[in-house]
């Protein structure tokens, strides 16, 4: 390698270009690998290049309920009325950041003691997958 020599394109010097290339490639390989290494939730397929992913084809239903301090009985939240429909699809897909933000928002109501998110999915062949349930105690930092 001819180090430190200016690039003939008039861009950054070649050594800087080489560093850019190496850094860029490292990121591009690390991002999808992080998914397969389990560093991201299986439902968070962003930046992993999973074209026609099986996870995406699951058919899921979600239910969110809240327990109010005064009554103590759980009440199902009418999702259609409180968030835009596209966010319900994200909840059905189990996008972890959306689920977390949604539960945090539900907990913003001081009367709410606990919020429960449950997601049930069926694979393309109709097999039921293990249910996914998150219980968030309000007023407690997760």
């Amino acid at each position: 390698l001819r180090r430190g020599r200016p690039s003939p394109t008039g861009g950054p010097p070649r050594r800087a270009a080489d560093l850019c290339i190496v850094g860029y490639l490292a990121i591009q390989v690390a991002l999808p690998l992080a998914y397969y290494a389990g560093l991201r939730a299986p439902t968070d397929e962003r930046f992993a290049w999973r074209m026609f992913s099986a996870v995406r084809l699951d058919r899921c239903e979600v239910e969110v309920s809240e327990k109010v301090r005064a009554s103590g009985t759980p009440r199902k939240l009418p999702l259609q009325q409180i968030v835009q429909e596209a966010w319900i699809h994200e909840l059905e897909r189990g996008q972890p950041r959306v689920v977390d933000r949604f539960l945090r928002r539900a907990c913003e109501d001081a009367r709410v003691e606990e919020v429960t998110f449950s997601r049930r999915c069926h694979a393309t062949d109709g097999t039921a997958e293990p249910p996914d349930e998150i219980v968030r105690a309000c007023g407690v930092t997760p």
Partner: protein
Amino acid sequence: VSAKKRRRKARPAPTPSTEAPRAGSGWESYWHGPVAAVRPYLLLRGVLLLLAFDLWYLMMPHAGRYGASGFNVAHFAWLDAMAPMPSDGLYVGVLILAGLAAFAGAMTGERAAIVATLGLYTYGWAMSLLDGFQHHYLLSLFLLGFALVPALRAGDLGRRVTAWAYRLLAVTLAIVYVFASASKFEARWQGGGVLGSLARGKAPFGALEGIASGAGISPSTFWTLASLGVTTIEIVVAAGYLLCTRPEAEHRVRFRRLGWVAFACAVALHVEVEVLGLHVGWFSVYMLLAACVFFLPEAWLARAAGVLTWPSRRASTAASGWIDRPATAVVTALAAGGAWVAAGVALDMPGASRAGAVAALATAVFAALALARQKPRDGTRCALASGAAAALCVITITVSPVRFDFYRYLGGDLERRGELAASLAAYEKAEQYAPPSRSRRKKLDELRQRVAQPRP
């Protein structure tokens, strides 16, 4: 030795900045070796042009989701902390401006326009997880590459240049296809059930399944083999991007052959994605364009580029004196600015007027900077591109059902959330822009009744 030195001295000086040196081997050759300028030129201009219409035509109708119900999650936590809560107006504005920058970049190759496209477009998808298309992230990587590719004009098309950023895009595509195939080594894909659920009964799988059945192959074996076929195709395309885009590949028969096979596989894969109706926007079109640019012979691309750039080269020659005058830059910038202000009003969408004003201002600032740098030609070219973008943006949005879709989606969403009066207002707007035979009159009557007599 002295004769050799003399010969070296006598060698003509390298032609301007874009001329590539002789490359060594290995790393040096791969990244800094010569690339036919026509390839990055066509990829950059083609992707930017497609992107402008993608933004105005395909992404715009969904703007009503942004900020609805006061809920949003950005792609990155830091963006949630820093950026304002998105709104339909903000999203429309970003799309209009990103489209302007992309179109100006496609017409002029101006780096400032490409960088503006990169910033605006990336913010456009990153502002919300409502945009989950993976190829939008891929396009941001393309734009990053374009910003680092040497500036190329139509006059550079016969040259060879050093363009490591162009090679980086080839490797990026190889990475995309490698991981796309990796995801298909999971048990569910290998069993064939996933592909079966996507493709059963659709061309050519319906016919192929029939033939397989006639040959005594069971449906489950057929879908397992078909899944394996898709995985293999993706691996071949990845290998093509990695191996056949190298400088020496054009001179080696086996790599030329692999390039053709990879091109055929890319075409088959992405045409099939469209046949299956997988709702991935214009992903296939971008990938087919990339396959053409990276795999087709240079002579074919040069011929295509020659035809495509003929009008601009001809116009540039014919109006050479006119285009170089500072007064021309001022007049065209004023006209383009006026066109954007009028376009903002004519579009009748939230955020459009402000975006029109910002576009007008940006055009004026760019022209002023070009004049200050004593480059009136650059100012005129960008102002002309900006004026054309204003006209095309208005035509795209007003002739197509973009506004109809935007307002009816918005109306439907507001109705679901019980905001009947706002829903009625949105549907009334939708009706104003309804294409023939797609009237929402029934819906309007129903909503009017419900607004007049609210349920207890």
